[in-house]
C-alpha cells in the first residue's frame, strides 16, 4: 500500500466505469398533442395557411408533433388581435398588469417539471439544465418584471414612460421558453401587447406558455403566438402595425431585419451572435478557471450566443491548463438528455449539426489541432462530442466565426495588453470572461473589454435584474434590468 512509483510517461486519469451511475431518466410523462395551432386572441386556432411542420426530438429523431406554419393572413390576424387588445391593456391599472405577470410566474413554477421535460424533448438540452436553469430563470423574469409594472414612473427619474403598442418578437431555439420570457415579460410590464414567433425547431414550450396565459386569464390578444419559419418572421417584422421588433438570433438575419426596417419608424433591438473570449491569466485559480471555461463553452452544447468560444491562456500556464481541460472534458457525460446525469445533450437540429461539422473541418484543414472527448455517442439522434482545438491562430475561421456548438478554440497570449487586443479583435462583442485572482487586474481588463457582459471568475451567470446585450455585430439594445425596459417605453421629454 505504498504510493505508486513515479512514471516516465505522461500520467493519465481514467474516467471509466469502475462505478457507473445507473440510467436516471426523468420519468415525468408529458402529453403532447399530435397537432398544434396558432395562439391568437386567446384561442388556439387552425392556421389559415392549412400548413404544418414537424417538430423533432433531436436525441431520437422522432417526430413529436406537427406545428402550424403561420402565413401572411395568420400574421395579420395575430397583429390585429394584439392591436385590438392594446388600448384596454395599456389603460389597465399597473398593479393589475403586475398580477397577471405574477400569476404567470407562479404557474411556470407549478408546471416546471412538465415544461423542463418538454424543453428537453423538443430541443435536446440536458434535463439538468432545463430543470435548473431554463425554467426557473423564465419564472424569475416574470417575477422580476411583475415588480416593475406599477413602478415604471421610477425607472428613469423625472421622466414618464408610455407603452408603444404591438411588439413583434422573434426568438431563437437555444433557450426557447427562457427567451420567450425575456421578450414577453418586459413588453407586458410596460403595457404593450405582443406577437411572438418561436423558432421553428422549438415551438412546444412557447405553446405551453400560451396555455398558461389561458389558465391565468390573461386578456385575449395581449400575447399571440405564431409558429413558423423565416417567412413567418419576415411577415411579422414587415407588418405596418408593428411598433417595435425585438429579435434574438443569427447576425445574418439580424442585419437583414435591420435593413428591412430602416426608415419604417419601427423600433428595433437585436441580440445576435458572439465569439466571446475567456481569458485566463497565470495568477488565476486554475482548476476553477477550467471549470468555468468548460461551463462557458459546453453549457447547452455550446448553443449559447454568449458562449466563451475563444479561450486565451497566458503562455506560461498553457500546458497546465490544457492538461486540466482535457481531464475535465473527459469527465463530461454525453447522451440521453432526459437522463438526470447527462452533462451534454443532443445538437438541436440536423442543420445545426452540419454547420458544426463544417467548422470542425475548417479547423482541421486550416491547421489547428483537434481534440475530442472519448464519450460514446448514441446511435440515433444528432450528436457532437465536446471538441477543442489547440494551435489556433487568430486568423483561423474557427477563431473568427460563431460556431454555435461544443467547439472551443484555444489561443495564447503573453501580456495583458496582448490579451486585450486579441480578445477585442472580433466583429462581435456580446460577452467575455476574465480569470485572475488579482482584483486590480479584473477592473483594468473588464473596463477595457468591448463586450456587453464581462464575467470575472465566473461565466454564464444570468439574472433578470442584470442587463444583457451586445456591442458591434452582437446587436444593440439590452434585455433585463432597468435598461431592458427602455426598448418597450416611449419616454416623455
Amino acid at each position, binding site marked *: 500500500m505504498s504510493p505508486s512509483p513515479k512514471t516516465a510517461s505522461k500520467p493519465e486519469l481514467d474516467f471509466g466505469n469502475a462505478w457507473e451511475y445507473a440510467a436516471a431518466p426523468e420519468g415525468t410523462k408529458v402529453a403532447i398533442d399530435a397537432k398544434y395551432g396558432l395562439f391568437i386572441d386567446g384561442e388556439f386556432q387552425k392556421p389559415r395557411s392549412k400548413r404544418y411542420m414537424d417538430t423533432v426530438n433531436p436525441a431520437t429523431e422522432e417526430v413529436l408533433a406537427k406545428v402550424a406554419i403561420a402565413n401572411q393572413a395568420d400574421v395579420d390576424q395575430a397583429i390585429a388581435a394584439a392591436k385590438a387588445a392594446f388600448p384596454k391593456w395599456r389603460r389597465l391599472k399597473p398593479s393589475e398588469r403586475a398580477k397577471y405577470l405574477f400569476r404567470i410566474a407562479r404557474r411556470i413554477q407549478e408546471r416546471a417539471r412538465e415544461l423542463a421535460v418538454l424543453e428537453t424533448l423538443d430541443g435536446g438540452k440536458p434535463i439538468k439544465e432545463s430543470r435548473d436553469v431554463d425554467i426557473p430563470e423564465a419564472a424569475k423574469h416574470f417575477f422580476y418584471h411583475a415588480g416593475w409594472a406599477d413602478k415604471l414612473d421610477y425607472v428613469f427619474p423625472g421622466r414618464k414612460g408610455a407603452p408603444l403598442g404591438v411588439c413583434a418578437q422573434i426568438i431563437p431555439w437555444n433557450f426557447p421558453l427562457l427567451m420567450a420570457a425575456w421578450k414577453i415579460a418586459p413588453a407586458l410590464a410596460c403595457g404593450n401587447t405582443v406577437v411572438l414567433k418561436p423558432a421553428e425547431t422549438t415551438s412546444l414550450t412557447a405553446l405551453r406558455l400560451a396555455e398558461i396565459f389561458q389558465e391565468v386569464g390573461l386578456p385575449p390578444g395581449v400575447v399571440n403566438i405564431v409558429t413558423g419559419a423565416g417567412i413567418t418572421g419576415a411577415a411579422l417584422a414587415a407588418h405596418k402595425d408593428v411598433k417595435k421588433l425585438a429579435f434574438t438570433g443569427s447576425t445574418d438575419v439580424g442585419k437583414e431585419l435591420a435593413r428591412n426596417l430602416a426608415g419604417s419608424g419601427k423600433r428595433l433591438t437585436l441580440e445576435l451572435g458572439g465569439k466571446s473570449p475567456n481569458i485566463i491569466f497565470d495568477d*488565476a485559480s486554475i482548476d476553477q478557471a477550467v471549470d468555468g471555461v468548460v461551463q462557458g463553452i459546453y453549457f447547452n452544447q455550446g448553443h449559447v450566443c454568449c458562449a466563451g468560444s475563444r479561450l486565451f491562456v497566458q503562455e506560461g500556464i498553457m500546458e497546465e491548463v490544457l492538461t486540466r481541460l482535457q481531464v475535465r472534458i473527459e469527465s463530461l457525460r454525453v447522451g440521453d438528455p432526459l437522463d438526470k446525469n447527462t452533462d451534454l445533450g443532443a445538437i438541436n437540429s440536423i442543420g445545426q449539426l452540419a454547420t458544426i461539422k463544417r467548422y470542425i473541418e475548417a479547423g482541421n484543414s486550416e491547421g489547428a489541432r483537434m481534440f475530442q472527448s472519448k464519450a460514446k455517442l448514441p446511435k440515433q439522434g444528432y450528436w457532437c462530442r465536446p471538441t477543442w482545438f489547440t494551435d489556433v491562430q487568430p486568423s483561423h475561421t474557427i477563431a473568427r466565426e460563431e460556431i454555435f456548438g461544443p467547439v472551443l478554440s484555444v489561443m495564447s497570449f503573453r501580456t495583458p495588453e496582448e490579451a486585450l487586443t486579441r480578445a477585442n479583435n472580433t466583429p462581435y462583442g456580446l460577452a467575455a470572461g476574465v480569470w485572475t485572482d488579482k482584483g486590480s487586474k479584473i477592473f483594468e481588463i473588464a473596463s477595457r473589454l468591448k463586450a456587453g457582459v464581462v464575467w470575472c471568475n465566473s461565466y454564464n451567470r444570468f439574472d433578470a435584474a442584470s442587463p444583457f446585450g451586445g456591442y458591434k455585430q452582437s446587436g444593440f439594445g439590452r434585455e433585463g434590468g432597468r435598461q431592458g425596459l427602455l426598448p418597450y417605453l416611449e419616454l416623455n421629454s
Partner: protein
Amino acid sequence: MPNRTVDKVAVEARAASFKTRSIKKESKRQGLLMVASMIDLTTLEGKDSAAKVRALCQKAIQPDASLPHVPPVAAVCVYPRWVSLARELVGDHGVMVASVATAFPSGQVDLPTKLADVREAVEAGADEIDMVIHRGAFLAGQLQVVADEIRAVKDACGTAHLKVILETGELETYDNVVRASELSIAAGADFIKTSTGKVSPAATMSVTLVMLETIRSHFLATGQMIGMKPAGGISTAKDALHYLAMLKETLGDAWLTPQWFRFGASSLLNDVLLQLHRLESGQYTAHYDVTES
C-alpha cells in the same frame, strides 16, 4: 509562478454540482458497498474502553450479520493505547488498524512527545498513523516547521502508512488548504485528511474537492498517487455517495478503492446498512434493526 489559489465561489458551486447526480438502483447498491469498504470506523472519545473497542472491531469485521455480502470496513481508528487490543481483535480479517497519534487532536505538545506517541502506536501494531499538523506554526507562516514535523513523523512510522490531518476548519481558507495539502504531500504524506472531527466545520464537499484537486495536480505533474480521507460530519449514506461521485469525476477509477479513499466516520456505516436493507427488502428499516458498535 504564483501560489496556487482557489476561487471560493466557484469551487463551492462545483462541489454542490455533485449533489445533483442521481444515484439509484444498482448504482446505489454498488456505491453503498464501496462506501462501506472505505470506512475508517472510528472511536476517539475520552470514554473509550476495551468493551467499546471490542464492539467496534466486531462491527468492522462483520458490519451486519444479516447482510453477509457487505464487506468489512477498511480500518478501525482508535487512540494508541487501544491499538494492541484492536490488532488482536481484527486479526487477519483484512481490516487495518489505524491510530491517531501526535497528541491528537490539538497536537499541542513538543515533537519528541509526538514521535513517542507515533512509535507507541506503530510498535503496538498500527498499520496506519493519522497525525495532526502543527496548525499554530502553519498559521504563523512557519511552513518549514510544519513540514519538518511531518517528515519526522513519517520516519517514525516506518512501514506504517501516514495520513496527515490538516484540520481544515482551523485553516479556514481554501488557499491555506491547498498550501497545507501541497506541503504535506511533499513531506511524505500517503494520505491527506481533512479533519479530526473535533473541530467544526469538519469535512465539507468543497474542502474535500480542493484537496482532491491538489492530489490531481500532484498526480498529473509526477504520476504519484496520494490518498484522500474526508473525516467528520459525513453521517448519511446519501452524503457519502455524493462524495463518491465527486471522487469518480475528479480523480477517476483508480481512486475508487479503499486503498486510495477513506471516510473517517462513526455513524455513517449504520446509515449505509439501513439503505442496503431497504434496497434488499424494498422497505425502510428501523434504526434499532442495525447494531450499535
